[in-house]
């Protein structure tokens, strides 16, 4: 049974069909690359899955659940184990790195407003746990000694890492990465690739939007190609490379 199963999602913006019966599935622990030319609808697809955009048609099933995720709010979808990053960075710039990550852990902590007011034992235990785990995640990202730094002061590459760390803090089963290496140099790209492999080893499946074929192809177990809001091809990376429809979508009619 797939971890995520998206069945023929459609989304129209006025007359434009951003998503036109798009289907996709991700298995447990798998890395799936989602590629396609600009405007193919990849980010819209992410936005529909994570509840930012309401879908017009179609259903989204997660972890074999009977109830579709469609129509749930973003925070409820996250709580089910679906976290994401954004194409153009959306970290909390005026918060520290640790605070950014602590926000990610909001849905995984139980303490109530009252326990915050009256500082119950549970509150202290939980806060300690949150910041310890936060340090662990920063360590994984190579940002361990910058925990109290304001996020806005980080370099672009480190901000991207922080965003991934924040998504991991939510304890996801599936991580949706929207162009994680955009604007990075080759060595940074290599580091992020290794990081994504590490994430996979933790048992987290990854759905990855990326334009850089040198990154997507070696990383992905499977690649899905989108064009005009539809899936036009799907298969192992080697096959996708040779697929004439994919080449046509990228390069236009010969």
């Amino acid at each position, binding site marked *: 049974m797939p971890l995520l199963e998206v069945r023929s999602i459609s989304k129209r913006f006025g007359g434009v069909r951003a998503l036109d019966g798009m289907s996709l599935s991700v298995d447990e622990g798998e890395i799936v690359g989602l590629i396609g030319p600009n405007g193919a609808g990849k980010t819209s697809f992410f936005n529909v899955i994570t509840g930012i955009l309401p879908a017009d048609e179609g259903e989204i099933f997660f972890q074999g659940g009977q109830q579709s995720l469609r129509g749930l709010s973003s925070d409820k979808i996250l709580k089910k184990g679906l976290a994401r990053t954004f194409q153009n960075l959306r970290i909390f710039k005026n918060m520290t790195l640790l605070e950014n990550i602590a926000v990610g852990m909001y849905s995984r902590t139980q303490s109530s407003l009252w326990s*915050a007011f009256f500082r119950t034992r549970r509150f202290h235990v939980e806060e300690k746990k949150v910041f310890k785990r936060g340090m662990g995640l920063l360590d994984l990202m190579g940002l361990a000694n910058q925990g109290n730094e304001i996020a806005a002061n980080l370099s672009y590459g480190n901000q991207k890492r922080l965003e991934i760390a924040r998504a991991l803090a939510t304890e996801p089963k599936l991580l949706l990465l929207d162009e994680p290496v955009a604007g990075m140099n080759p060595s940074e790209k290599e580091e992020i690739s290794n990081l994504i492999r590490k994430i996979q080893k933790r048992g987290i499946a990854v759905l990855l939007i990326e334009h850089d074929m040198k990154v997507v192809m070696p990383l992905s177990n499977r690649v899905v190609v989108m064009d005009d809001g539809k899936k036009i091809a799907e298969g192992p990376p080697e096959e996708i490379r040779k697929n004439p429809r994919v080449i046509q979508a990228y390069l236009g009619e010969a």
Partner: protein
Amino acid sequence: MLALFPLLDRNAYHLDLATGVGIYVILAMGLNVVVGFAGLLNLGYAAFFAIGAYVYALLSLHAHTPFWIGLPISGVVAMGFGFVIGLPAIRVRGDYLAITTLGFGEIVRIAFNNLSAWTGGPNGLLGIERPKIWAPTWKGHFGFELISFGVSALPYFYLVLVLIAVIAFFLFRLMDSKFGRALVAIREDELAASCMGIPVVQIKLCAFGISSFIAGLAGCVFAAKQTIVTPDSFDFILSVLILAMVVLGGMGNIWGAALGAVVLGFLPEILREFAAYRMLIFGVLMILVMIFRPQGILGGQLIRRELTRPIKEGS
């Protein structure tokens, strides 16, 4: 240190003024929760202040409810209205929220003005009971006696001071918790906060409720001090004034809001000798502050967590 103020300055007028400013401080700290932390523009804050004041006034006149019982009830009723107004209002954003709350503020004031049977209309409600406390006395033998606050502002000054301390204490605890972080995250980027699992509507509503509760407390104290409430004490200008205090002091900073209230509360008195030019100077000063320190007097101090040494541990 502030507690010594009445000993240093025996002028009754100054003490009365300081107590009034103290009520402004409570209001500014309360509004700061919504405007400063959650980034929601509320232009009808005076309405919650008014509700608190009228709730205690009505309780006192009809049920002879003591102040100390009226105080939490005023807060809770104001909070209830905060939820009722917040629920539809929070779904609209930015300018629209400002207009919705502005409308609510005016509706409440006009309602109090026109519900003459209940609120006395424009004449307001008179004869509200002052707070009473059990004070130690010495009449040949040691004992306790129920003493009512008098015309002097002195006991009110200390009452307000204690309230400010308690509210600030709980607000600091609130901000240094997952709720505080969630509020700041919503202000920073609502969409990202929602995608990181923050129940945005619920958190905003909580902020609205807490903020209204504080306004309700302030209203109750105000009513008990004045012993009279009239609708024109709670006009739109008051909402704007409190907002100006929060912005001037530094949005999102608890002491900043308090400082803004102190500055804007005393400034008109300090400028009194300029008579007719008073409001002009007041306006110019506000503009200058906004030009040279747009983040407010204490703004820009970002919340930093104290971690003496980073925990080096893999996960």
